[in-house]
């Protein structure tokens, strides 16, 4: 029998705010344990939360970008559960009057556009962190409440995805939107973007959904993709052998790449939601929404379309460049300096991203500004330096922060475009490689590539390859 996979994703993104959801404590990642807390986020009795207005605005940006209906009045609710990472024994969340409902996100898989429904977008607070001591003999768990109360956005999708590939496209598009609108920095390794997947299978063409398995502990997008593929196989095997898949919560085991059931007692879901009496409702006026709209930059999908239509970028390039807003901005600023867009894209996707990956840094940390990159590209396109020297100069710019022209001058890297000067080098190379010359004269064109390579070596990349080729042709009497 043929089966189809049915996937829904719950996404948690930490808001890019300075302070917490309900108090003024910092939200910095990696601070020493329990140094960013106060009586409010410690959950001490008698304290009162006050809503961070900016977090609500960031939530509104997300709800608008995901084309949700925005609630005219939204309200917080208490989600009750007993776990040591939650100092109040309830999480302030939203259940009855979510910030946004009934939205949608357009994704593209294999060139096909698909729409994924968004059930709701709501605001909540993050929990603390449990640290299990490395010493396995230790019989305690340590709690760090720095993260408790960090503003959190939850986005619940409809079960509209049918493959791991679609889930992957959804996660990437969502992350691109959250980054573009400066809603979240989406650093999965720091836990500021997290996913939970609801996965079921059913016979193709079936109308009823299969029993849903919820998978937690997914710490990267690739873990989500692998967990979906694993669950699909596991659930199909259960059905094929005549069994039924129980509805349950499973944990993804990163090392073994399998899902494991959670202890059943802990998954007994009875959150007993009720309106949070400590917080008054939030009214979202049309004027406020207009203000939020004005703060929103262009969405990634629109930006990609514009890059393809107006700047003639290939769709692949547009996809890579738009994935991160700072890179897309950098690209646009480089193009504004008069660089041909595809050339700018090649440099950014090649050299710039290589350096960013090597240094594990962000584009804003790079000492090479878009005008500086534009100058360098100009030197290459004007044949003042070769492409390979250009790459060396770029590396130099990244470490010294100097301008391309200065480096070329200082190191004498200007391309040899003077035929007299280059002719001497070409003659020497031809004399040193009689075999290659013989090959070339007998019509083997690849010998010419070899000779040009030797000329580049002799000039440390400074020879103008076009001129070198012409000189070879002339001097070999071809």
């Amino acid at each position, binding site marked *: 029998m043929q089966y189809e996979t049915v996937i829904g994703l719950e996404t948690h993104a930490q808001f890019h*705010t*300075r*302070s917490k959801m309900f*108090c*003024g*404590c*910092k939200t910095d990642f990696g601070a*020493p*344990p*329990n*140094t*960013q*807390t*106060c*009586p409010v986020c*410690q959950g001490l009795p008698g304290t009162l939360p*006050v*809503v*961070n*207005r*900016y*977090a*609500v605005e960031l939530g509104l940006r997300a709800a608008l970008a995901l084309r949700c209906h925005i609630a005219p*009045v939204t*309200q917080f609710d208490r989600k*009750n*559960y*007993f*776990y*040591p990472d939650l100092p109040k024994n309830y999480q302030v969340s939203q259940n009855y*009057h979510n910030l946004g409902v009934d939205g949608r996100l357009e994704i593209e898989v294999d060139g096909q556009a698909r729409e994924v429904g968004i059930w709701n977008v709501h605001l909540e607070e993050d929990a603390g962190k*449990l*640290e*299990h001591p490395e010493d396995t003999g230790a*019989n*305690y*768990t*340590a*709690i*760090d*409440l720095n993260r408790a109360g960090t503003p959190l956005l939850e986005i619940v999708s409809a079960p509209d995805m049918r493959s791991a590939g679609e889930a992957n496209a959804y996660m990437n598009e969502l992350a691109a939107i959250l980054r573009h609108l400066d809603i979240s920095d989406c650093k999965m390794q720091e836990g500021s973007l997290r996913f939970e997947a609801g996965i079921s299978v059913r016979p193709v063409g079936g109308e009823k959904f299969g029993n849903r398995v919820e998978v937690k502990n997914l710490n990267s997008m690739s873990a989500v993709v692998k967990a979906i593929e694993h669950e699909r196989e596991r659930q199909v095997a259960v059905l094929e052998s005549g069994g039924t898949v129980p509805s349950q919560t499973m*944990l993804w085991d990163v090392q073994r790449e399998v899902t*494991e*059931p*959670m*202890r059943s*007692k*802990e998954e*007994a879901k*009875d959150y*007993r939601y009720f*309106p949070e*009496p400590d*917080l*008054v*409702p*939030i*009214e979202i006026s049309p004027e406020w929404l207009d203000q939020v709209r004005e703060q929103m930059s262009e969405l990634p999908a629109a930006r990609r379309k514009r890059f393809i239509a107006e700047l003639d970028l290939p769709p692949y390039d547009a996809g890579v460049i738009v994935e991160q807003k700072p890179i897309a901005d950098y690209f646009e600023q480089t193009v504004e300096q008069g660089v041909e867009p595809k050339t700018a894209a090649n440099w950014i996707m090649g050299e710039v991203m290589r350096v960013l990956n090597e240094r594990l840094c962000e584009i804003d940390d790079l000492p090479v500004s878009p005008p500086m990159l534009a100058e360098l590209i100009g030197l290459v396109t004007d044949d003042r330096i070769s492409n390979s020297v250009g790459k060396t100069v770029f590396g130099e710019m990244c470490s010294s922060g100097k301008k391309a022209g200065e480096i070329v001058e200082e190191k004498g890297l200007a391309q040899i475009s003077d035929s007299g000067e280059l002719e001497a080098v070409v003659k020497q190379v031809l004399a040193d490689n009689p075999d290659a010359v013989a090959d070339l004269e007998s019509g083997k064109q690849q010998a010419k590539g070899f000779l040009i390579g030797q000329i580049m070596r002799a000039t440390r990349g400074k020879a103008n390859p076009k001129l070198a080729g012409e000189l070879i042709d002339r001097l070999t009497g071809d």
Partner: protein
Amino acid sequence: MTRITTDTVEQVADLSKLILSDEELAGFQEQLDKIIGYFEVLNSLDTTGVEPLAHPLDLRNVFRQDTVEDSASRKDALANAPDKTDEAYKVPVVIESS
């Protein structure tokens, strides 16, 4: 008619991580049943056409700006903890999976 059965009390106790003796279960069953009974009085009111009230106070949009304020020192934060390490609260081992 009992509104609260001992099964319900057991379930609530379980969610609250409380272990109750049989006598306690029976005692709480009776007490909770009475409490819920008081709410039946409210149910006798006809609320047809009345919007559910989100909050008893007639206040809206109470916000703070996204500004950082001083946090408590770690020493103060951990001062009331019954058990702690040098830097964190200490609780009995939490097992997340079987």
